[in-house]
């Protein structure tokens, strides 16, 4: 219990963003895509490029909530030989270079289940991971990983969606820790975004139910999209757009080119500028 009450990197980072009067940028990178060392080079470069929190993708053969872009990233990563254990090794290496940027692992339950829940929690915390987002674990399955994770001190970040109505929201938020990830559309990753109005309304609705920071994702592709979300939410999450930037930098055989890490980090810089400028623009 005490582990969870201790303020962690995620809480410290959102507190810092609040002090700075701005929203955060959360970036997604699939570990192992297009191969392990390049994905680490990108991961290592993210804080300096402007990522405030980092989601690292852990691939699964059957990613039922992901669109074609992230599916392809997962397949490249699996082909490159990434495993959950190797992903945690990358977390450990990242922590040797950065002790404050929060790292959240995003994936599906089966690889964690097969790794062993208790062993995973121990190894993940030991490596310096701060939280997990597990797409296929709704509150109905909280006994599986959510409650053990909270007990161990690993944040369990839950997705809320447009189909999560007011009646269901309390159940979804009950054991959510760290922050809430609002999926702004009903759909898969990489689909078109929601309109500004519907996002604003949704954030207002969530605010009535929770004091946790609210991050919004799905469909955010450009610095302008990110800025729009940053005006109303505590953080904007960008995934597929970054993976697309990586994919278009690869050579004909799907291998890293000289410009791969730069392609991703340059887009992160522009997205970060968009997020940072958002509230200034509104005031001005």
């Amino acid at each position, binding site marked *: 219990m005490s582990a969870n009450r201790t303020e962690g990197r995620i809480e410290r980072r959102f507190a810092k963003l609040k002090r700075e009067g701005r929203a955060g940028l959360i970036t997604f990178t699939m570990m192992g895509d297009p191969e392990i060392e390049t994905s680490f080079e990108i991961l290592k470069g993210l804080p300096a490029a402007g990522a405030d929190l980092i989601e690292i993708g852990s*691939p*699964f*053969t*059957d*990613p*039922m*909530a*992901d*669109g*074609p872009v992230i*599916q392809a990233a997962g*397949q490249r990563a*699996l082909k490159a030989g990434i*495993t*959950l*254990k190797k992903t945690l090794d990358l977390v450990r290496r990242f922590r040797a270079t950065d002790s404050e940027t929060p790292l959240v692992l995003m994936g*599906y*339950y*089966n*690889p*964690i*289940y*097969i*790794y062993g829940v208790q062993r995973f929690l121990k190894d993940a915390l030991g490596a310096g991971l701060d939280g997990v987002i597990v*797409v*296929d*674990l*709704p*509150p*109905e*399955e909280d006994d599986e990983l959510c409650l053990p994770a909270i007990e161990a001190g690993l944040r369990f970040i*839950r*997705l*809320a*969606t*447009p*189909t*999560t*109505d007011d009646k*269901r929201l309390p159940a*979804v938020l009950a054991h959510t820790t760290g922050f809430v990830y609002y*999926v702004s559309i*009903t*759909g*898969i990753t990489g*689909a078109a975004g929601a309109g500004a109005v519907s996002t604003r309304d949704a954030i207002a609705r969530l605010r009535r139910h929770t004091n946790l920071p609210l991050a919004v994702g799905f469909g955010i592709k450009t610095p302008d999209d990110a800025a729009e979300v940053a005006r109303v939410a505590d953080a904007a999450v960008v995934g597929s757009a970054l993976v697309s930037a990586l994919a278009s930098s690869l050579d004909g055989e799907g291998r890293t080119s000289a410009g791969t890490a730069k392609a991703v980090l340059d887009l992160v810089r522009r997205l970060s500028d968009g997020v940072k400028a958002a509230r200034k623009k509104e005031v001005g």
Partner: protein
Amino acid sequence: MNTAINSYRAGPDERGHFGIYGGRFVAETLMPLILDLETAYAKARTDLAFQAELDYWLEFYVGRPSPLYFAERLTRHLGGAKIYFKRDELNHTGAHKINNCMGQILMAKRMGKTRIIAETGAGQHGVATATVCALMGLPCVVYMGAVDIERQKPNVFRMKLLGAEVVPVKSGSRTLKDAMNEALRDWVTNVDSTYYLIGTVAGPHPYPAMVRDFQSVIGRETREQIMKAERRLPDSLVACVGGGSNAIGLFHPFLDDPGIKMYGVEAAGHGIETGQHAASLTAGSPGVLHGNRTYLLQDDDGQVTEAHSISAGLDYPGIGPEHAWLKDSGRVTYVPISDTEALEAFKLCARLEGILPALEPAHALGHVIKLAPTLPKSHLMVMNMCGRGDKDIFTVADALGVGL
């Protein structure tokens, strides 16, 4: 599982679990839909008007009851157990799949849904879904792996004739599991209008229980028919398992009759030892895929591996969660039958009984061929002939080296 079990027919619990299996491992977007379906199905289940409507369509449209047929020449040839076929291949559309589709299309209508999606492997479930959609005037989208589209061309054409849109799935292994991923993605995107008509006893709760209930008409009829024919219950039941819907449909009404042995026959493909098979219960381990925990073919990292079977309908790396529980509890015995053994059974059945079985029940027959000669003539065995083989003639010709 050493604790005594009072009934094998009581599951799942209110959270959709059969022992440790089953559950609701889906994205949050889908949870409210699954809960709605659970509520709607709980009401329909006890609604006499719903049952009466379903019975009407099963009798006059599907053609139920299907006969329980004494396979006399096969029985004599094998020289042991007395073998009956439950002739579900005589249903409209040629397989057991329509039993479930008829039930679920009525659910979709009750729930006011206006668009139907489905996944299909062999194409039998896709054809059955396209059929009930045509019947009810609802648009239908069927996801089918690109590999399966190639080996089941007649069924693809049938679906199109029935007005369905067939979407080729090119991700992953391009077979049934990927078709299911793609159908789930469609459902996540079109939550308001769309009903996902799952074809087997897999997926999140309440699908495994609901599909089982709709397929249990097979076992209920068999019970009555064998009592009429033999004045006693059978000694054994045999059915193939891919996702496991025809098997659970036959087994479920008999699970609490302790004397009855049950065999679920998995596809051993090129052989269990080659790694190229679809025998998740024989050679897999528990994991979470497509909304439920069950036995899966997977590697040490929890990545799902590709299944192989000559039969597209068995080519799935998982199995319905109730089968996983029935395996662990020891109530049902699961055995593998290879591509070659299924082909031999296919040929034998054609010549001895004048029935071309689908390659799926040809696996069940492969086990009957092994088992029946070891049993006394007084032993009554019922095998579910769950589909007809017309759709498979190209695959069989290919396997036998015959050009058509």
